[in-house]
């Protein structure tokens, strides 16, 4: 629910791209949202050549973990013994964790000027506007709570499934 409230709030504060001025002047709703960067003057990461260049690294940063997760699920499904599958996927999980950190900071290492800066940063020099920051924080908190709920729910399910299979095996042995 918290996540949905954040999403709705974010949608409610979406600036109308067709009404945004193309001149150098800042729209009051866009104050502080990297309005001085050419990449974002025409909305949603569009550049003067009409490509989503500014969004590329962000999409890439989401797409890489998605591919890792697909690989994780494929590896888990490919191994028949669950314990062996757990061992192998744990190694992949560790590699993925390191890769996630590298992918996060790769933008800073090889910054060529096209990449969008961090939307949330602790320094006060460059921050996203409040109309976007508050829905974003609500979404982050809501998604975190949803993640914790799902982890607990699925852990309980897994414990019950393991208990059931152990009881069935016990009965077969007897």
């Amino acid at each position, binding site marked *: 629910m918290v*996540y949905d409230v954040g999403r709705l709030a974010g*949608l409610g504060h979406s*600036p109308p*791209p*067709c*009404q945004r001025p193309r001149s150098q002047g800042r729209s009051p709703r866009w104050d502080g949202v990297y309005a001085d960067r050419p990449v974002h003057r025409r909305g949603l990461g569009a550049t003067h050549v009409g490509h989503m260049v500014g969004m590329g690294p962000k999409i890439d940063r989401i797409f890489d973990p998605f591919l890792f997760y697909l690989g994780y699920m494929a590896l888990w499904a490919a191994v028949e013994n669950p314990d062996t599958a757990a061992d192998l996927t744990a190694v992949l999980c560790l590699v993925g964790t390191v890769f996630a950190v590298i992918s996060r900071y790769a933008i800073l290492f090889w910054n060529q000027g096209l990449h969008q800066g961090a939307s949330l940063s602790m320094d006060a020099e460059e921050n996203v506007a409040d109309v976007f920051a508050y829905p974003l924080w609500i979404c982050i908190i809501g998604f975190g709570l949803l993640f914790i709920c*799902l982890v607990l*729910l*699925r852990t309980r399910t897994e414990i019950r499934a393991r208990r*059931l299979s152990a009881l069935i095996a016990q009965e077969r042995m007897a």
Partner: protein
Amino acid sequence: MTAFIFPDLGPYAVEVLSAYAGTLALLLILVAGSVWQGRKTRIRLEEFEARRTAKRQKSTENL
């Protein structure tokens, strides 16, 4: 209380709204799937344990 005014999304309406709809659908599938799987496992375990307990009671009575 101010009414929720639907924003003018301009030429990006299809992309933005389809992204919202897709995310919502995926979240619903994820939550519903987890709840359904959890409920199914719980019922199977309860049925198995009830059957096992009944079986044990029956064998104790026979002794």
